[in-house]
């Protein structure tokens, strides 16, 4: 077990190295000369050269990469070209809305999608199954911002049940915070729900064929207990894996959802950074999201033993 954990953690190092190399190269090949930008319009070529040397920009690629990785290890992601604030500070200011959105979406999506998939597998071939599958195809096809606008139009503009846009910090109370997040969370979660419902149904169909389900039925276990205790527990590993993999969808979707609902989070930060070509910020956000994604999937891998005691490392 311990050896496996160590191996699995070590295995993420090359992955993170590739991500870091890619993100670093992004800035390296980015058009525009940071030294010239810092030197300003009045600078002579000599001034620019001096600044370039003082920043270490004249050093070879790999040396600069090493220095950059070292900076990251110390928690220094560079300084925004546009606002002159450290990227870490900018990320800290924007992280709460994005984190809230993701957590609410995750909880909402899993608590809707898993029962949907279980019911579809239980009632396979009936209208309920077809409805769930139909919804799944729709969820894969309708882009996040379309769902977002549709929900905002119906529930915020026409029915006036919920706020149209914006974000209220959690510190101002749970209800206003949640009211602002519910529509974005459903919009962002639609693909995710489709995905989880589909994999839940597929895995449950397989598990329900197993002998131990027949045994459970024979000993008189009730339908809910068979579905949720005997079957779902054994279907947990693929479902949880997909929940982890699907986080990538949430991250990509958050960028768009935050634009639609005017949520001042990391997604908005990314979009603004792109429009201003603020490369250090883009770098920082991409690096952070990728790191979180790898970490979540690492943790899920390590948690498999909890869901399925048959797995031994």
């Amino acid at each position, binding site marked *: 077990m311990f050896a496996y954990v160590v191996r699995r953690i070590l295995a993420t190092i090359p*992955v993170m190295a590739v991500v870091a190399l890619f993100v670093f190269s992004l800035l390296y090949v980015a058009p525009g000369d940071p030294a010239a930008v810092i030197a300003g319009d009045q600078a002579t070529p000599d001034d620019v050269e001096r600044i370039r040397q003082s920043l270490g920009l004249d050093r070879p690629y790999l040396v600069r990469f090493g220095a950059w990785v070292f900076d990251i290890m110390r928690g220094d992601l560079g300084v925004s070209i546009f606002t002159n604030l450290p990227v870490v500070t900018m990320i800290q200011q924007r992280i709460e809305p994005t984190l809230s959105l993701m957590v609410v979406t995750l909880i909402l999506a899993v608590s809707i999608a898993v029962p949907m998939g279980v019911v579809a597998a239980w009632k396979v071939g009936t209208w309920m199954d077809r409805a769930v599958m139909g919804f799944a195809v729709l969820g894969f096809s309708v*882009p996040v*911002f379309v769902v977002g606008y549709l929900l905002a139009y119906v529930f915020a*503009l026409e029915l006036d049940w919920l706020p149209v846009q914006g974000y209220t910090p959690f510190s101002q109370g749970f209800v206003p915070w949640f009211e602002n997040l519910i529509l974005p969370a459903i919009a962002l979660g639609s693909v995710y729900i489709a995905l989880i419902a589909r994999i839940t149904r597929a895995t449950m169909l397989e598990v329900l064929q197993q002998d131990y389900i027949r045994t459970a039925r024979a000993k008189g276990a009730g339908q809910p207990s068979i579905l949720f205790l005997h079957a779902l527990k054994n279907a947990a590993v693929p479902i949880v894996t*997909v929940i982890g993999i699907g986080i*990538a969808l949430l991250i990509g979707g958050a960028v768009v959802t935050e634009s639609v609902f005017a949520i001042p989070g990391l997604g908005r930060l990314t*979009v603004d950074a*792109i429009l201003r070509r603020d*490369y250090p910020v883009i770098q920082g956000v991409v690096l952070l*999201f990728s790191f979180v994604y790898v970490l979540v999937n690492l943790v899920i891998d390590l948690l498999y033993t909890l869901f399925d005691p048959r797995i031994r490392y």
Partner: protein
Amino acid sequence: MSSASVLNPADVPQSAIKAAAPMPDIMPPVKARKGLWGYMYRNPSIAIGGTIVLLMVLMAIFAPLLWTVDPTALAPARRTREPSALYWFGTDMLGRDVYSRVVYGARVSLIVGFAVAVLASAIGLTIGLVSGFVRWADSIVMRVMDGMMSIPPILLAIALMALTRGSVGNVIIAITIAEVPRVSRLVRGVVLSLREQPYVDAAVSCGTRTPVIIWRHILPNTVAPMTVQATYICASAMIVESILSFIGAGTPPIIPSWGNIMAEGRALWQVKPYIVFFPALFLSITVLAVNLLGDGLRDALDPRMAKRI
């Protein structure tokens, strides 16, 4: 793990889909209809999806003939008109005819979807084959692919677009790069399982050279999964293109694309929702059709997976 359907069903673990329904002892007589209609009857997803995709392609090709006007013609005097007999989908805040823009916008979506599907398949196929056959390259290539896959695809495409000017070509390249790792993994998986097949062993023991084995025995078997995968990539690429354009990092605003029209309608969506509504509708229907086509092809080409997922 891909995409707003940046994620697609082909990434779902195979182990989850293997169970087959129990067969009745006596199969009912098969009512076989022949010809095109029979085929469509048996595969409604392919028929419906294919028809809609075909209609969209025809619409994109014959856009000038479909009672459209110049989609970029400005007319400030008649801006933000509601949909009417004259302006079927209304006009935007610069007075451009939304109907014409939506019809022309199909061109960008379809070109991007198709080009990315072809390019990503070709590159992914090459990388997957090399990785599946050249032992020493495998671990290096797959570590690189793992790294690229751990950057969420939309974010990767956004980051790449930040490096270049917005143009349709650059959008295609950015989305292709984001899609390639998944295709490579799929092809590599197929190659590795095919290499264990007795007929490949037989070919090897007959002294068949590796290129011939790849060409005669491996490639033909990748066609079915690749076709299905390419369809899903196409759907995913159309969504990513619209997202890139929507946030202003994709197709340049001068070219009407569904994402661009929505981006322009964004400021006004609370009062003039139709500017956002029509491109959204067309985009959703097209992506839905391509996904249906993919599901249908998967069921038709891989009977084991049929009706499972």
